């Protein structure tokens, strides 16, 4: 669906070169929810805006559906853009138009269908995003979450194959964020729409992305399935973003790790294992006792996972056996102490 090859971009501000992207290459297959995460200034917005050429790369290739769009004429580029929906952090709705008129705008631009057909399409979209009751309100009369729903409906009006979300939930509170992410996930499933979303919050990636790229200083420093990157982050940038979410730094701060007298392990498990009584089984089988220092049991999109920091007490030989036993049950064991 999307193939980026070696994208480079440097901005010139007051005669000084500000590098934004430095050799970005990636592939996004059709139907995937692909997340891009990075700190402020990492180059995320610059990157996502290149997918519909709101920003032009200095060099590199951007292929959408196998076609390089960097060399297209204005008219051809407009055609491509009509096939790509985009949702923005600050919604970017037209304040002079009602909800329904905002959603109708893309249909007007492409002159698609009669007035009645457009009305029907708008009604259908407002139904999809749950705003049918608000069709005649102006954006200033809506909450942030409702505005973003209008933004999503507008982005979907021309039945795009690709949806780009630039920090779509960053201006929203946690509950509204959840409902917007649910909506995007729902649309991805129902319409088999490819979604590329950027965010600086690991929580967003964890909830809806299939794969993720971590971008830092204009480069991709880590990329892979969310479970892998999230549970076993390699790069320092990824680790710190994951840590914020899993409260791993709190463990260090709490001093529990330093005062521990036994062996401290971080156990990570995904899928069905999450629902098994692993700690109890291990303790009773190998004659160990344990205490829980920290723990998370949650989901990565639809995949349940758990991450526990456990302090064990017992004979060294039995501990070694326990470690093997856990590995055999697909539990990843990291020895912290």
């Amino acid at each position, binding site marked *: 669906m999307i193939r980026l090859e070696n994208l480079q971009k440097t901005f010139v501000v007051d005669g000084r070169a500000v590098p934004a992207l430095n050799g970005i290459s990636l592939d996004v297959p059709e139907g995937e929810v692909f997340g891009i995460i990075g700190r402020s200034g990492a180059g995320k917005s610059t990157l996502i805006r290149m997918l519909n050429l*709101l920003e032009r790369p200095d060099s590199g290739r951007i292929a959408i559906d196998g076609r390089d769009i960097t060399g297209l004429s204005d008219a051809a580029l407009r055609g491509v853009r009509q096939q790509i929906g*985009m949702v923005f952090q600050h919604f970017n709705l037209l304040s002079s138009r009602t909800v329904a008129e905002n959603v109708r705008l893309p249909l007007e631009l492409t002159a698609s269908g009669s007035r009645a057909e457009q009305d029907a399409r708008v009604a259908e979209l407002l139904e999809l995003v749950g705003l049918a009751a608000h069709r005649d309100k102006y954006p200033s009369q809506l909450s942030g979450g409702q505005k973003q729903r209008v933004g999503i409906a*507008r982005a979907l009006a021309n039945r795009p194959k690709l949806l780009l979300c630039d920090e779509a939930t960053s201006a929203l509170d946690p509950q509204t964020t959840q409902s917007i992410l649910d909506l995007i996930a729902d649309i991805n499933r129902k319409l088999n729409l490819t979604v590329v979303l950027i965010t600086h919050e690991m929580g967003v990636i964890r909830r809806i992305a299939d794969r993720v790229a971590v971008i830092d200083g204009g480069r991709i420093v880590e990329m892979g399935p969310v479970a892998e990157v999230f549970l076993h982050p390699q790069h320092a940038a990824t680790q710190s973003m994951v840590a914020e979410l899993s409260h791993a730094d709190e463990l260090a701060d709490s001093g529990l790790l330093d005062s521990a007298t036994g062996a401290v392990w971080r156990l990570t498990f995904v899928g069905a294992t999450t629902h098994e009584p692993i700690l109890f089984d291990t303790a009773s089988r190998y004659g160990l006792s344990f205490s829980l220092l920290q723990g998370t049991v949650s989901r990565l999109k639809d995949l349940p996972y758990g991450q526990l920091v456990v302090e064990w007490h017992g004979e060294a030989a039995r501990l070694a056996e326990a470690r093997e036993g856990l590995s055999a049950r697909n539990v990843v064991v990291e020895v912290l102490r």
Partner: protein
Amino acid sequence: MELDWSLLDWAEIGVATWDTLRMLGWSLFFTVLFGLPLGVLLFLTSRRQLLANGWLNRVLSFVANVLRSVPFLILLVVMIPVTAWLVGTSLGVEGSIPPLVVGATPFFARLVETALREVDRGVIEAVQSLGATRWQIVWKVLLPESRPGLMAAVTVTAITLVSYTAMSGVIGGGGLGDLAIRYGYQRFQTEVMIVTVVILIAMVQALQMAGDWLVARVSRK
């Protein structure tokens, strides 16, 4: 000084008021007709905008600035031959319209440009991302989104034109200014002066109120 209101020629004041209204109406019409596209072009050709073109922008900007820096009274005199050639006379209501339009158009265009700058860049980008043409962006985004600002610009311009029409009376443009000069100044009929000033004030008030009402009506923010 004793004021004697019985000497006032109300019929003549009525005609002069009507002339001023005609001058105002026509000159406002042409000012908007020429100034709106000029303002849009000034905006679009400026840096980082849709038709960014430094050279064209500098030329337009320069012309607008030159015209705006010429005092209106001088513009009136300088324009006499041009006006005579354009509308056949430099006198009366017809003769006063070309200088009024030339004087007010660059002023209005700048106000339009300022109003367009108020449109959120993100909104323009969002519509670009939907595959809109530049023309569609102007018609469907820039102009509707800046409607309150544009209404305010028309109001300010109309009020400026009221004082310009009074000045054009000096060179025989007709209307209330003409009346005030001929009777109030040259024949010391203070009563005429007072009445014309009161009518001009009422006109400005009415325009401001109508303008404010329109701005409030189209504001959705």
